[in-house]
């Protein structure tokens, strides 16, 4: 409002250039560094300083990636869908349990410390137990993945449901709203930022859970490929698999970021 006079004086295309300049300033340094590192890596590999067994050249990794794309994508399926199933189930269960526990204060006081205590257990150490319980199939991986991803979501939901300032609860009481109405109209929207941050952590854990399950059962999936190529010193394939796994993680993460952007567009309480 205050700078109307000034901004009218600048030609509009100047602003676009400014935008481009800001983005460039952000991306250029890491991009340049990355290119330099890759270049140095390539040069060292060609020159024979870097053992091809331990660290093949980027060109070789890329080459392997393209050649094995079929196999890699095929093995990415169980990993990707396992993580998807894991996070979605964990989200549903986690939010439901979090909401249920938050229903009454005594219930929450009783249950929340136990949940926090469960967070302390290094859950990955329980992977072999899940193996015993559920065998070695895809379902077992998903169940383990749900188990790991579930806790951050529950904790985030419980914390979030307490985020609404108490004046809002008083407002709802004065308007004679029922418990359920207060929950839907006020408490849950205020909990959303916390829930989403819990979901972001949960996505990471879900992927870790699936990959770990694949490490241990060693039958399918990107985790299996990584282990297999490590055992056979096929380092190029290993790196290619890691690259694809990174892509899987990015896709899932991006989905939840987009979801968060949409939902918070409607219900932003920050």
């Amino acid at each position, binding site marked *: 409002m205050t700078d109307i006079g000034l901004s009218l004086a600048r030609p509009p295309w100047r602003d676009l250039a400014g935008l481009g300049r800001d983005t460039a300033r952000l991306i250029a340094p890491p991009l340049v560094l990355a290119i330099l590192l890759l270049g140095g890596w390539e040069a060292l590999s060609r020159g024979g300083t870097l053992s091809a067994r331990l660290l093949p050249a980027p060109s070789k990794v890329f080459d392997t990636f393209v050649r094995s794309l079929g196999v890699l994508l095929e093995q990415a399926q169980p990993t990707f869908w396992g993580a998807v199933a894991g996070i979605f189930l964990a989200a549903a269960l986690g939010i439901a349990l979090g909401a249920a526990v938050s229903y009454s204060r005594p219930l929450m006081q009783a249950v929340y410390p136990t949940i926090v205590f469960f967070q302390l257990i290094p859950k990955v150490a329980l992977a072999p137990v899940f193996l015993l319980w559920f065998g070695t199939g895809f379902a077992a991986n998903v169940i383990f993945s749900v188990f790991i991803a579930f806790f951050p979501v529950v904790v985030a939901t419980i914390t979030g449901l307490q985020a609404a*300032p108490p*004046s*809002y609860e*008083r*407002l*709802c*009481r*004065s*308007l*004679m*709203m*029922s418990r359920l*109405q207060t929950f839907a*109209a*006020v408490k849950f*929207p205020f909990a959303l930022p916390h829930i989403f941050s819990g979901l972001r952590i949960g996505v990471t854990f879900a992927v870790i859970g699936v990959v770990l399950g694949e490490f241990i059962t060693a039958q399918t999936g990107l985790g299996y490929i990584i282990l297999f190529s490590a055992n056979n010193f096929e380092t190029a394939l290993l790196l290619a698999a890691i690259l694809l796994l990174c892509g899987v993680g990015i896709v899932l993460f991006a989905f939840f970021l987009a979801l968060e952007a949409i939902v918070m567009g*409607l*219900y*932003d*309480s*920050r």
Partner: protein
Amino acid sequence: MSIPAAALRVVRPVVASPGGVAAAGADYVVVDRVRKVYNEGSRQQVEAVAPSSFAIKAGEFVALLGPSGCGKSTLLMMIAGLDAPSQGTIGVAGHALTQPRAETGIMFQDPTLLPWKSALDNVLFPFLAAKRAVGPADGPTRARAATLLDQVGLGGFHHHKPRQLSGGMRQRVAICRALVYEPDLLLMDEPFSALDAITRDEMNLVLMKMWEEHHRTALFVTHSIREAVYLADRVLVMSRRPGRIIEDIRIPFARPRGLEIGETVEFNEICGHLRGKIQHTPQ
């Protein structure tokens, strides 16, 4: 954004409350020997409100004035039905009060607007609580909400979110929300305490205008003597804790009142009298 005195209309309709009983002048809110004690029976027992009795007549604007911590907000909460008296009874519109009433409108110090809803949707929020006859999508209701926002001076801001509004503007939205379902009793707990002095004067004018337009029975809690004298027909003074009513005076100024009456001798004499009452209460 000040409202010129010429915009204030002379209005004094007679209120027929939804309860059907009270004509102007009848006792609308009856507080009978109400006492509030916290932690009764334990070592941390605290008497917040000493036995107090008073009545508010239909259509009256009463200010409840007292120093901080004297229990005036507690008393308002009890009249709102959000807290229960330890002793005594409260009656509103001829019925004993045991829980919040759908026909009572309340304003708090914090506007408490939902951050993700527009100003208009915030005003319509009470209709989301299904105990009303109509929902928030109802045409006449939406029109009434829009008119209220226009009346408080938020004409171009219906679709703004709270974070785009100043503190004073948010409280105006809160006023509209309290009035939109046409309550017969309006309770206000220091709604302007958190605002700066200039905005506060503007809000007093807005409240006056809205009250004279919609003329409900009103109880306004404040610790500002000038605010109480400016707004009310009648001022009840509460002592320090444990609070009890120690003074009940009628304010003689005619309505509509402009801010300039604050400069008159009579106004300041009344303020001085009230100040003396507050300062000299025995412990």
